[in-house]
């Protein structure tokens, strides 16, 4: 069972308190009616599915209830960092450099 740090609670807690919520940094278009069919399809269905660091959303469901973002390595299944929703994407090179 993973340990996950909630950036709102500032506590590292067992995975059972959290739920996964899909890839992060996929913003809903401000005005979907202006978006092409292809762009809307990509928004709905196309995901990066990387082997390695993945930007993703989690929710501290059985805690503060907040959605937050994380970078998790899909190979090692390790969290490189977690950060609040709305904060910019952290720099991957820095993160993986730190991880070494």
């Amino acid at each position: 069972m993973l340990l996950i740090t909630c950036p709102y609670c500032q506590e590292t807690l067992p995975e059972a308190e959290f739920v996964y919520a899909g890839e992060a940094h996929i913003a809903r278009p401000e005005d979907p009616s202006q978006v092409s069919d292809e762009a809307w399809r990509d928004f709905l269905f196309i995901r990066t599915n990387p082997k390695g660091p993945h930007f993703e959303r989690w929710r501290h469901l059985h805690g503060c209830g907040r959605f937050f973002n994380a970078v998790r390595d899909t190979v090692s299944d390790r969290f490189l960092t977690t950060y609040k929703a709305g904060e910019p994407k952290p720099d991957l090179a820095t993160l993986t450099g730190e991880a070494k």
Partner: protein
Amino acid sequence: MSAFRVHGKGRVNHGRKVGFRFDGTPFEGLEGDTVASALLAHGVHLMGRSFKYHRPRGPVTAGSEEPNALIETRRGIDRSEGRVEPNTRATMAELREGLEAVSQNRWPSLGFDVGAVNDGFHKLLPAGFYYKTFMWPKSFWDKVYEPFIRAAAGLGRSPDAPDPDSYASRYLHTDVLVVGGGPAGLAAARAAAEAGLRVTLVDESSEIGGSLLSEPDVVIDGTPAWDWLAGEVAALAALGVKLMPRTTAIGYYHQNMIGLVERVTDHLAEPDPALPRERLWRVRARQVVLAQGALEKPLIFDGNDRPGVMLAGSAQTYLNRYGVRVGQTAVVVTSHDSAWSAAFDLAAVGTSIAAIVDTRAELREDLLGRAHALGIEVLRGHTVTGTAGRLRVSAITVNPVQSGAVGAGRNIACDCVLMSGGWTPTLHLFSHTQGKLEWDEEGKTFLPFETREDCQIAGAGRGLWGIEAALADGSAMGARAAEALGARVLARSHAVERDRTGSGVAKKELPTLKDLTSTRAFVDFQNDVTAKDLRLAVREGMRSIEHVKRYTTNGMATDQGKMSNINGLIIAADALGKPAPQVGLTTFRPPYTPTSFGALCGYHRGDHFDLTRKTPIDPWAEAQGAVFEPVGQWRRARYFPKPGEDMDTAVARECLTTRSAVGMFDASTLGKIEIVGPDAAAFLERMYTNPWSKLAPDRCRYGLLLGEDGFIRDDGVIARLAQDRFHVTTTTGGAARVLAMMEDYLQTEWPHLKVWLTSVTEQWATIALNGPKARALLEPFVEGLDLTPEAFPHMANGTCTVAGFPARLWRVSFTGELGFEINVPARHGRELWEILWQAGQAHGVCAYGTETMHVLRAEKGYIIVGQDTDGTVTPQDAGLGWAIGKAKPDFVGKRSLSRPDMLVESRKQLVGLLTEDHSKLEEGAQIVLDPSQPIPMKMVGHVTSSYHSQALGRPIALALVEGGFGRMGDLVHVPMEDRTLAARITGTVFLDPAGDRLKM
């Protein structure tokens, strides 16, 4: 006295006899015995039959890796059917008074087994036999192949009664967890404990000590091994180390979480019924020291599976730990020095060592000298080409090998063969961490290399042999773990006398004279996989070790290849002509040893498996004799039968009463979310398809919720209570999902909206009154609200009191009748229900359940999300286009509704179906247009809802049909097993299409 018991030897209590039975025969063992050691003390080696060929088998090990000696036992006080334990390893099962052990996989008896005919046909059962044989003809599958496979499959017998024992579940946080209580583990625990850390030491055996339990002659720091061990265990206890014998580390999970299973009562003759049988521990350790030691490998030669053939190290354990000689005349066959000490130990207690057969030509002088002194014949550079004996080995054939040529054989009579192919580190838990392995060419084995977990590996588990090396390494690794946690301690070393280190060579199957196709050299004893099978798999094109494993089933038995994986790899690599590290090892997965479902379930069984949610009115329904059904986690009343009524008659009566008088329905399970804030209406505008801004604060509206993909997710009535306050209802099963979806959008897409969401599902009890007499029943109890149709029309909502209870009263209907939903604080739900029930008697009231609710709503064509929709249904498909706010610029899912595929006319659309012959359709039945087309037919849809309608006097159905809106009046066909039903497509509203009954 048992013939093979050595008086005074071992850790068993020679003064405490323990009576037990094996296959009905009474035996006597000693306290401290396992079932295997107690039987061996009586000269009994034959304990089971193999899985595929039903070959006679005896124990080949003395530990948890045992593949052969699997027996059935019965646990606990009553030994009832529910306490039957199949596939108990006789080598691990501690003896207790009255234990009943039964052999498995044989009929009629262990000595004479009809299934052994398979053994004569072994040439017909090669690797991949199942894949090759059960291919065709297809028609044979149901009647011939599957019954055959099912009859042959499985090892042991599953009990068919529930397990009456209880199982506990615990969490543990510890600084350092040490897995393995041998010399390395003991030293690691000592070092970490002296550093002031919280230390936990686990060992799967009944006693802490590991290999020291089998090495009494070793002297550590001038003290005999067992005295040293007793002192060390006491010292650890004094340092506060949590010592857990009989505890297996089954899996190493993320971030140093280790699963432990502690066996609490299996070894007790009369366990305290208050104790759990097992405890599952979830341990989070800051540092883990793996000190699991190493497993001895068998040698692969023809007939290496006969009872009496066992690992040399295990024979040594039976002698030194249990005081049992495994035979009268032994031949030792080895490629490793360690087996020589087994020979010397057995010789010292009177077992005749007929020969030591070593595959190596060069041997250590000290070993040769000792053998010579004991008068033991040594055959160096020899191979084994066969064994003899039916239920027990009686002779072995050994041949010299010179320059690769096998010379003439010689038979040596014996009643046991002690073999050793060297040792392989126990890598299982390390592999669970996705740790990388490195190939040790000299030892021909994999060693742990690196892992991301906070984990140290000590002793034989990383290829260090001998007790002195294990003690020093354990102490060093314990100190390293302490250092990683910021504590400092000096590692110690110990002076060990009579340590028995050694080396050896790793072999593929031993060379033989015989035609290879006739040899039976077993690699995986439990699954009956031979060296020949592995080579055949490679010849037939298997290149990956994972394919070889699955094709042959090597390593796939309940021992998970503890003894067979490395030998299998060496043989497969040889057949492939590749170096072993290039072929690689199959993946080890948890659990390390077979684990009971009870331990994994813990407390989550029976009523505790999942919670059952009940409404405040549930006890009343139960008292009335309601029949319940589960809806999500809720228990809901399905119907209220009167004496003599079955479901159909009860539902018909409930439907008739509700449509002609009044029915009461407990709707408390509906999900309820209160949405409050200045932007509440704006938020709902964005979430739901319908318009909300202009809804008056005393009105309700049907709300439809889509996913961003445009498909229906949920629906429910939403009441506006005030300008900034809405009471949203969701489907019974959808409440948590809808709230999570709302939170997601609110927190991450529109965080600027000033809205607060609160789940209030369990704060309100909801009573629905439906029927022409609903108002007459309700009106006398209402204060503060005018219920006349003009003042309180359909879809009105208001705040009032009902029978003095504060209420949110809505005029809504899910039946098509005049309807009210009364929401009162949950604590008043039952009292209000009973007041209305009493008053309702004068109006001929009935209580109705979910079944009647379903019929009444289907008559009106009201959908149930998740029954009439399946996650691919748009509002238009469901005939709910009217619920879309056309003028709204955006809502969740709106953009998707104009994607090209959402607009095609051939989409599946919700329609009504009326069968021509008035039979009731099956829900889920497939629909075709042409019933005479060849099979497989083109299916154009399926029946989603089907009921007998009391109001219409005939069955009705809803269905999703391709292009259904364009097929009104058409005949479609529903092929069933015995006949094909014709049905006509209609609209979905079967009753009162104008909705006059709502307006009463």
